[in-house]
């Protein structure tokens, strides 16, 4: 194994990460990351590892607490990395590594060593180690055994995230894969809230669940962190088996995904669907909107988010059974409707030029005012997002367990339209002020700029938490009695959008060289 060269590559990966801090956005990201890291360290030392370990030992149920903490961390790391893409972006592809003196096995090792040494996984390891060290300090475990167990757990965690992300990436490229993903997403969003209460009530189900969970990596690692004796070999074997199985599975999926999908020779066929839709925006806009529509509709990232937006809305609305009547569902739906149209297109609308690569140059060669390009791209996002709002409203009227009330429909429509305008207005600014060159072909991986991340994650949280607050403080009846407030609020959002478009057009022209530099990788 060519270990020196592999670690040279790890070093190169960190140099590349550090190089990103040379940009203004990079410096802001570094500052925030350092700030967050400091906070997390405090949390880790108090409530995380040591705290959990202390509770574990004092409660007399060390293994149960360890199972819960490691299981929770494992799941959170998995979801966070697969959903946001942190830690599973491929730093070096197999093709890129072929230029170095590495054989196939060494290339595989290089990819996964650089992958698992990404900062996010080191942070997850710190959390795992916090618990195992805490258990050792409070006399409930063996230090080295615990450390070895959480190291193996981290490997399993990383590999499972890679398997899931690669599988989803592959599914999104094959015929029918999008439908499978859609079903999986709906199941993931709706099944837990439907199944877990029933399982908890069912006799014997809890024991059966515990028995099954005993074979999972977090439970095996939890047993090892608190128990040096019985079952040690069994649990180490279990972790090793998981890692081996995941490695084999990952290799198989990567092999399948790497098969060339080049199109067979075919003559040009004139598909006018996009032109027909775009023609509603007028003759000047039609070619630009048609081009943007093709980008939106062909992007796996957008398609994945688009099909996931309605299940996400259902999750936000129906995740917890509404205590106190079905009207509570309506208040939660308000938050969901505000963000649903934006969720479907955010990966592209918050970074409108990031997918254009060198095509960005062409905008300024076209015989039109550059502001028209910004306008066309934004109209496309509004149009695509608008279809989600319309679909959500129809589904709500047909299936929501809430009696029909015109005020509810009006409020939801106003929230949908207002949210669409507000978030797309803000997206104009993230596109202009925080652009980032992004790969069109990938489905996963968080390639949004810092500004876009703040807008997307912040917007989502604000909508979810805002309506929870509204529900708790005012209650659904009071919210409904002020239904008319939604109309001026939506009108304000429309005004903001229209103002952003106008001011954004001038900013687009004045910042074009900076945008060009950012999109072509120059500072």
């Amino acid at each position, binding site marked *: 194994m060519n270990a020196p060269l592999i670690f040279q590559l790890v070093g190169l990966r960190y140099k590349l990460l550090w190089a990103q801090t040379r940009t203004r956005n990079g410096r802001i990201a570094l500052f925030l990351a350092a700030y967050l890291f400091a906070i997390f360290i405090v949390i880790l030392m108090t409530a995380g590892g040591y705290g959990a370990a202390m509770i574990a030992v004092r409660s007399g149920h060390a293994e149960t607490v360890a199972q819960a903490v490691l299981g929770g961390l494992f799941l959170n790391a998995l979801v966070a990395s697969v959903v946001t893409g942190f830690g599973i972006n491929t730093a070096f592809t197999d093709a890129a590594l072929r230029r170095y003196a590495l054989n196939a096995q060494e290339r595989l090792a290089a990819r996964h060593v650089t992958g698992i040494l990404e900062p996010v996984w080191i942070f997850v390891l710190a959390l795992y180690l916090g618990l195992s060290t805490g258990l050792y300090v409070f006399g409930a475990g063996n230090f080295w055994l615990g450390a070895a167990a959480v190291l193996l757990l981290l490997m399993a965690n990383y590999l499972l995230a890679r398997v899931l992300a690669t599988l989803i990436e592959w599914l999104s490229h094959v015929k029918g894969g999008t439908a499978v993903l859609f079903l999986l997403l709906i199941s993931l969003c709706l099944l837990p809230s439907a199944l877990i209460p029933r399982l908890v009530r069912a006799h014997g189900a809890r024991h059966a669940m515990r028995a099954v969970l005993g074979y999972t990596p977090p439970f095996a690692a939890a047993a090892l962190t608190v128990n040096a004796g019985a079952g040690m070999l069994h649990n180490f074997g279990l972790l090793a088996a998981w890692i081996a199985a995941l490695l084999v599975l990952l290799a198989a999926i990567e092999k399948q995904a790497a098969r060339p999908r080049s199109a067979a020779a*075919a*003559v*040009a066929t004139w598909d006018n669907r996009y032109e027909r839709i775009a023609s509603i925006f007028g003759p000047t806009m039609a070619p630009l909107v048609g*081009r943007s529509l093709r980008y939106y509709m062909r992007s796996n990232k957008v398609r994945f988010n688009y099909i996931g937006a309605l299940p996400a809305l259902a999750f936000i609305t129906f995740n917890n059974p509404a205590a106190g009547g079905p009207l509570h569902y309506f208040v939660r739906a308000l938050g969901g409707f505000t963000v649903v149209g934006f969720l479907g297109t955010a990966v592209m609308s918050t970074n409108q030029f990031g997918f254009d690569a060198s095509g960005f140059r062409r905008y300024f060669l*076209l015989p039109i005012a550059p502001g028209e390009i910004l306008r066309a791209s934004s109209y496309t996002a509004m149009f695509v997002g608008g279809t989600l709002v319309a679909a959500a409203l129809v589904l709500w009227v047909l299936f929501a367990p809430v009696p029909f009330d015109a005020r509810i429909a009006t409020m939801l429509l106003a929230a949908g339209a207002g949210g669409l305008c507000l978030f797309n207005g803000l997206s104009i600014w993230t596109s202009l002020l925080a652009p980032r060159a992004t790969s069109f072909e990938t489905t996963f991986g968080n390639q949004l700029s810092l500004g876009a991340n703040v807008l997307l994650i912040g917007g989502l949280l604000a909508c979810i938490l805002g309506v929870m607050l509204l529900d708790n403080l005012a209650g659904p009846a009071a919210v409904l009695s002020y239904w008319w407030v939604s109309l001026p609020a939506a009108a304000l959002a429309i005004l903001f959008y229209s103002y952003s478009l106008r001011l954004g057009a001038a900013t687009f022209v004045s910042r*074009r060289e900076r945008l060009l530099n950012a999109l072509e990788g120059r500072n």
Partner: protein
Amino acid sequence: MTAAIEVANLTKKYGETVAVENLSLTVPAGTMFGFLGPNGSGKSTTIGCLTGLLDPTAGSIRILGEPFGDSAVALKRRMGVMPESLGLFDALYAHEFLFFQARMFGLDAETARHRVSELLEAMELGGTGKKRLSEFSAGMRKRVAFAAAVISGPDLLFLDEPFESIDPAGVASIKQWLHKITAQGRTVFLTTHVLETVERLCSQVAIITKPGKLVWQGDISALDRDGTISHDGTEFRTLEQLFLHLTGERYAQLDWL
């Protein structure tokens, strides 16, 4: 002879860095004009300013007899540009991209479709209907970019390294079309590092050095007739000799190589 491009005292700065300094240039209409310079001398920056991509820091530009600026939409309609980075929209198919380009330049849908089909056949890209531009080879991408530049039948054509990566048959076809364009009184503004190509194709040449300073402009048609170019009392038999003389010969000795 009227001028297709008139540049007076053009300067482009990026902060403190001067990319083009006080460049004045006149390109006669109906010529094939070679714009040459070493790497980093400011050729692409000059083209950026001449085509509307970049804002000049100072100086004036007249294109086809009219002042050129941000709002010169009508003038842009008469120009075709093939940028060095090609400027393709990778998620589109070739015919979709060319159709988009044609429509943006004011062609009606029927004419646009007709020209797209003809160009795809002429560029030997006829069987690529279901292949995105991102999947094209370097040479195929270059052909698409060339087709996009000419699809509107421009009066002034900017070509930045047009022949790189294209096979000999493709290069021959493009050269033939370029001759046809100039024969009709239209102008081609060409940059390339292949000086033999410039020697054979262009009648007029301008050479710049860092930072975007014009060091020579003149007629090179004599070279095509086995003649010479005279500069500072020296006779140059090839464009390469003149270019190296003006820009400075640089040969580094690498003992280990």
